[in-house]
């Protein structure tokens, strides 16, 4: 039986239980969201004892060296003393703008009080002052002064609901990260690129597509954005203008249902993409947004010939209970 000490709490882990689940079972408050080792909300620091390497997978080396690990994927084999992680690796930021782009998408601008380095398309963990933490993808380029996030309002969503109507400009939050492997890597500049987003999955792709263009990517770049209805599309004007300004970039909006025709395709996004591009051998792909759509599109791109190592995805996994 493994015993874990965390602050003033001591608890024994059950067989197969993660450190996070053990602490939560004992009523110990620990910030968490995805429970799948991706969002970084439950980052803790080990003070004593051995942390299994799998609990540090994907963390920055400098964080690993300081004993940071993710509690949700930590299954310690021996006793461990841990403490809350974070304050030395989180940076403070101020909400500077909250723009409602559609009935359920708000664009959040954040001014960081310390430099925050990232690759466009990566995501960060946003901490509210009460400790609530959620992952959001970064939509801006590093040289732009403020961080830009696109947040979709989830019914009864604690963080998204707050950002949508509770939060005010001037509010203080904390940022941790960045994380994620879904970004443009310079090189192979003639390779065709396909980017597909549903909903706010557009956020990382909005950064990635601009990153590819400013890096001088020469191959065709095709961006598809899907929404349920036309009023769910956003940044359509900006993307159409981007396409007009760059001969190798195209933008296709896509909706499931519409009352009247418009500047969009009507249909399931996977089918719209397949009707345009069915042979993807040698292409690079980026897919972000709803997890089930990401999963099926990833398989679609792979079966159409895209190499697995050329497919970059971020599934917006909901927080786990």
């Amino acid at each position, binding site marked *: 039986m493994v015993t874990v000490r965390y602050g003033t709490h001591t608890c024994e882990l059950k067989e197969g239980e993660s450190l996070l689940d053990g602490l939560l079972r004992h009523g110990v408050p620990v910030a968490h969201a995805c429970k799948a080792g991706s969002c970084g909300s439950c980052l803790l620091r080990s003070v004593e004892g051995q942390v299994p390497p799998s609990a540090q997978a994907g963390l920055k080396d400098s964080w690993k060296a300081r004993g940071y690990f993710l509690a949700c994927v930590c299954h310690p084999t021996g006793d461990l003393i841990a403490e809350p992680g974070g304050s030395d690796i989180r940076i403070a930021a101020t909400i500077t703008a909250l723009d409602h782009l559609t009935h359920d998408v708000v664009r959040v601008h954040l001014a960081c009080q310390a430099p925050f380095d990232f690759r466009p398309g990566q995501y960060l963990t946003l901490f509210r002052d009460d400790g609530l933490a959620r992952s959001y993808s970064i939509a801006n380029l590093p040289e732009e002064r403020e961080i830009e996030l696109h947040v979709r309002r989830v019914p009864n969503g604690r963080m998204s609901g707050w950002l949508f109507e509770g939060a005010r400009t001037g509010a203080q939050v904390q940022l941790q990260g960045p994380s994620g492997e879904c970004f443009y890597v310079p090189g192979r500049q003639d390779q065709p690129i396909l980017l597909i987003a549903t909903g706010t999955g557009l956020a990382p792709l909005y950064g990635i597509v601009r990153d590819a263009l400013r890096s001088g990517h020469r191959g065709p770049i095709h961006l598809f954005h899907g929404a349920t209805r036309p009023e769910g599309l956003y940044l359509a004007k900006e993307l159409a203008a981007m396409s007009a300004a760059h001969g190798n970039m195209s933008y296709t909006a896509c909706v499931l249902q519409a009352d009247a025709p418009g500047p969009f395709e009507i249909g399931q996004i996977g089918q719209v993409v397949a009707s345009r591009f069915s042979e993807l051998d040698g292409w690079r792909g980026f897919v972000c947004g709803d997890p089930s759509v990401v999963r099926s599109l990833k398989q679609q791109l792979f*079966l159409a*010939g895209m190499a697995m190592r050329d497919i970059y995805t971020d599934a917006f996994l909901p927080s786990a209970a």
Partner: protein
Amino acid sequence: MHSKCIFLPTANSTLFDQLGGQAAVEAAVDNFYRKVLKDDRVSHFFDAVDMDRQRAKQKAFLTMAFGGPHNYSGKDMRTGHAHLVARGLNDSHVDAIIELLGGTLRDMGVQEALIQQVAAIAESTRNDVLNR
């Protein structure tokens, strides 16, 4: 603890070398995984949530079938496939996998004699895979 077996070929140039080693595995794995996903006989056994992890498993399998260094034991094969046997995995599926494996190697232009050797290694795992 069950001891791990490592395939140690005796010929001067091993099957694995003749096929092109780890680079050949890397070149084959997407092709093989795609064939498996497109084949109605077996695709449902491979329809994983995590495609990257599923691909890694295919890579380990190909490394073994190509005669490369691996650390599968018969016991690993058994425990690794028990849940699939419970879902109906049987000889016809093993046949299909060996056929698709051959198809992948043919796509890569590998000679029939080598393909037969790969098929024989895959064949040698049949009883463990099917938990018999």
